[in-house]
């Protein structure tokens, strides 16, 4: 009885602790830190506004150095090869990254990350595209591509992309222009790797099935044990 009570208290303590952080207990397969949303989904809990970023890239002997620009929260990282910029006599190239205050929802697309505006004091050299990495939240479906636009109103064009580290998406061939960037998927097709059951509510269904299985299988076991102990008493 003492053991059952200890387990019950542990279940309650766990439920309270896991309820306080979204999505709850995870074992290192979620993103390393909660995603900072411009427009947080209801299940996000406490949310911090996304950060901006700034980089000063030195130019040596007319060639910009290899460098990267990133937001302070690491949600967007852009990598530049040596000579990635058309420097035009500049000695330093400045790159600015700003999260948009709004969340564009272009027709036919579902963007799952914040949209970021990336600008620079020099254009990119088309033969040396910049590599782009976007982090996304485990509270949203996986994005299929990184999208780029010259205006937040669109049109948004897909940049061929691939998964990077868990919960990041990376451009395959990079981008040769600056502008607005976000990751998402075509809303006409399910997100990659997703299992859509019950309108996407697979986790509640999974837990309900587990509970039903435990109850249905547990009842006969409990009855059998009671009968066995009753037989012993007789």
């Amino acid at each position, binding site marked *: 009885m003492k*053991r059952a009570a200890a387990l019950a208290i542990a279940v309650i303590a766990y*439920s309270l602790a896991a309820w306080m*952080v979204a999505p*709850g207990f*995870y074992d290192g*397969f979620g993103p390393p830190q*909660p995603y900072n949303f411009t427009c947080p989904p*209801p299940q996000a809990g406490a949310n911090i506004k996304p950060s901006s970023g700034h980089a000063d890239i030195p130019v040596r002997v007319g060639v910009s150095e290899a460098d990267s620009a990133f937001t302070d929260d690491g949600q967007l990282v852009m990598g530049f090869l040596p000579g990635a910029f058309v420097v035009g006599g500049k000695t330093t190239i400045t790159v600015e990254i700003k999260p948009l205050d709004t969340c564009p929802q272009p027709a036919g697309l579902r963007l799952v990350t914040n949209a970021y505006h990336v600008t620079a004091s020099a254009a990119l050299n088309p033969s040396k595209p910049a590599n782009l*990495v976007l982090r996304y939240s485990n*509270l949203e479906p996986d994005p299929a591509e990184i999208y780029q636009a010259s205006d937040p109103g669109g049109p948004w064009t897909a940049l061929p992309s691939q998964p990077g580290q868990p919960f990041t998406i990376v451009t395959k061939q990079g981008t040769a222009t600056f502008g607005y960037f976000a990751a998402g998927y075509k809303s006409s097709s399910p997100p990659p790797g997703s299992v859509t059951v019950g309108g996407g509510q697979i986790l509640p269904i999974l837990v309900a099935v587990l509970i039903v299985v435990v109850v249905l299988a547990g009842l006969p076991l409990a009855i059998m044990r009671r009968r066995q102990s009753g037989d012993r008493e007789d």
Partner: protein
Amino acid sequence: MAQQPGLTVAALALGGAALTAFALGWPPERLGLGTSKFGLRLLGGLALGAVLLLPAAVRPGVAPLLPAGLAWAAIAVSIGEELAFRGALYAALDDLGGAPLAIIGSTSLWTAAHVLSHPTQFLGAVAAAGLLLALWRWACKDLVAPVIGHAIADLAL
């Protein structure tokens, strides 16, 4: 590794295997891996999985599942962690100072092991999950259910 998700999976699977190595040399019964009442152990695992996932399941909104490519790594890591923390470490601490030391010690070290991989605000939930699994190990003298429950939770989130 950023460009090679396959390497991430391999590294995680290797980590799981390395954790499993901690359990080598211990008799299965001392690790809680007996086969008696196996149906009940299995059922306990499903129940623990349901408890671990319940807060995420009842939270409003869609909680996505783990990316399919990480499934095998998740299983390897959850088995490895259970064998290392609630298996070998629990048994060693139990020999050293009894059940209280085994429960508190294995939970503390399990939480500490997640400090680098988890932001601070998640450590309360990690510690509470570790305590629940360690108490199950103590109350039922069983590690099969924690392995199953932990794997279910890792596969889902």
